[in-house]
């Protein structure tokens, strides 16, 4: 077990730095210039000034030197300053990470709860064979949730629940007038639902097929045979065992959450990591792109590592040898 974790850790470090290296050189071959973009937004186009800024950000150095310098600074916890807004990259990433985490955690919680309920309902209806129409609906609902494009769903929700019925604010994270925890929750509802949809559908499908599989097991028949109440069998015996694949699925979900965040944050003008990165890529803000890449790769890889390790803990049959 320990050698497995250590080996994975080594590979992981390699992957993270491979990613930063790839993105570093990818951003440098992009057409467009961060300094000129920044100065253009301030309506200045002085070649001498461009050179001065270029020197200040170290962009006049050869590429390998720039990368090694960046690595050196990373080791010292310094990710540099944004070219566009000149704020510390660590500060900008910290704020955006917080916003995305709130959204992703809300989305995961909603997705897991809604997914398990939907999946359980779907499995029980399918086993009961008494409600053919309900069975079709519970089979279709998860598919609708997983296939609906997140931006379409987000805009449907905005039109329905923020424009037609003014229940929730359409965009943003805080109101200008009374920002607070309640206000944040209010703003969180629609983007959370949008974020949760696809994962809720996926969870429901995993839960449904896991439950159907468990319900075929011998111990379920035994439970029935010894006269246990139907509900007791379903919730005490079946659901508990069916939850194992659902739990492992949540780790994988986290990654797709980050991918979904890019579109959801754009629809709801949510000041998170996805929006920060998209804006930075469009404005060629190298320090933000590089710092963000490092952070996202770390989150991603950590989530994957957690999933792999948790497999071994949850299912003792899995052993990672060699």
């Amino acid at each position, binding site marked *: 077990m320990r050698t497995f974790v250590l080996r994975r850790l080594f*590979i992981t470090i*390699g*992957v*993270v730095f*491979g*990613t930063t290296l*790839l*993105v570093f050189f*990818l*951003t440098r*071959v*992009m*057409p467009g210039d961060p300094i000129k973009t920044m100065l253009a937004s301030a309506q200045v186009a002085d070649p001498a000034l461009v050179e001065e800024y270029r020197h200040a950000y170290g962009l006049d150095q050869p590429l390998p030197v720039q990368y090694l310098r960046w690595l050196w600074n990373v080791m010292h916890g310094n990710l540099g300053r944004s070219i566009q807004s000149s704020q510390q990259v660590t500060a900008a990433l910290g704020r955006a990470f917080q916003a995305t985490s709130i959204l992703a955690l809300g989305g995961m919680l909603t997705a897991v709860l809604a997914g398990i309920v939907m999946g359980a309902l779907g499995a029980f209806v399918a086993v009961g064979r008494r409600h053919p129409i309900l069975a*079709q609906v519970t089979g*279709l609902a998860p*598919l*609708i949730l*997983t*296939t*609906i*494009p*997140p*931006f*379409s*769903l987000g*805009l*449907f929700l*905005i*039109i329905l629940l923020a*424009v037609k019925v003014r229940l929730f604010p*359409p965009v943003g994270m805080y109101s200008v007038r009374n920002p607070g925890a309640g206000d944040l929750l209010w703003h969180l509802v629609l983007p959370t639902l949008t974020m949760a949809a696809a994962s809720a559908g996926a969870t429901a499908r995993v839960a449904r097929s896991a439950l159907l599989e468990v319900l075929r097991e011998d111990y379920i028949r035994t439970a029935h045979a010894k006269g246990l109440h139907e509900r007791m069998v379903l919730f005490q015996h079946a659901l508990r065992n069916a939850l194992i694949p659902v739990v492992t699925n949540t780790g994988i979900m986290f*990654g*797709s959450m*980050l*991918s*979904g*965040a*890019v*579109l959801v944050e*754009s629809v709801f003008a949510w000041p998170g990591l*996805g929006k920060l*990165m*998209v804006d930075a*890529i*469009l404005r*060629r803000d190298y320090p933000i*792109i590089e710092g963000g*890449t490092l952070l*996202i*790769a770390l989150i*991603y*890889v950590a989530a994957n590592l957690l999933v792999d390790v948790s497999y071994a803990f949850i299912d003792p049959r899995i052993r990672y040898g060699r």
Partner: protein
Amino acid sequence: MAGDASVSGRAARGVLRSERGASSNRVVVYLGENPLVIVAIVFLLIVVVAAVSAPWVAPRDPAKMVPVDRLRPPGTREYLLGTDSFGRDLLSRVIWGGRISLLAGVVPALAATVIGVIIGLVSGYVGGRLDSLLMGLVDVVLAFPFMLLAIALVAALGPSLENAMLAVIISTAPARVRLIRGVTLSLSTMPFVDAARALGYGPLRILFVEIMPNVLALAVTMFSIDITIMITATAGLSFLGLGVQPPQADWGTMIADGKQFLSVAPHITIIPSLVLTLVCLSFGVIGDAVQDLLNPRALLE
């Protein structure tokens, strides 16, 4: 598929071929039990036919701006689905946009599948250094949310439909490579591969004639499920302004166009969103059906 282990891959396919009559019956029974699949197929056929015959079916020029008629609601006699903020006919734009959006789903899905099968097969069968190198590259790509990677690639290549599709292919293919490679790895240890080797078959023949037919069910399932993912991803790039450039428009750009008019003219957003959603759902329903019928899960376990 697991039963193939005892016989040669080719003999197994012979058995499959003779069972084809029975399997077409199975499809009919399945469709009878799942009428929704038929609805999805019919709906997609209508959308595809409309998109292909856009020049004859679309009532108007999709790019023609009629400022006097801007923001007309649906149901107007001249404009069945209303007009957008430039007075362009939404029905015509949805039909023409379908050409791009459908293409943007099918082409990347096909490309990712072909890349996944070929590289996955070679990497899994050859193994060794090549496999380590390829899987290292796959790991690097997978260490990043695919949507963000696609955005970065489009930014590097310049926004256009072709580059958006290319970016989606590059950022999604590695996961498919990994999947096929894993299956190939376990297939390579099966007796029918040893038998083929003992018969003196060359590696190319073993790989593409003996092993490949066994991963095809998985590949077809992967492809049918991927179409939805690819349509959404490319439409998403267009939605962010990184895909199709004006005057061309796919459903993603149309949805983005309507974003500023959500309270005045929500139909500009709702109509392309609804069509996109229904198309994605239909492909999803068909993907599920393909998965049920081909059952590649047996291969994965």
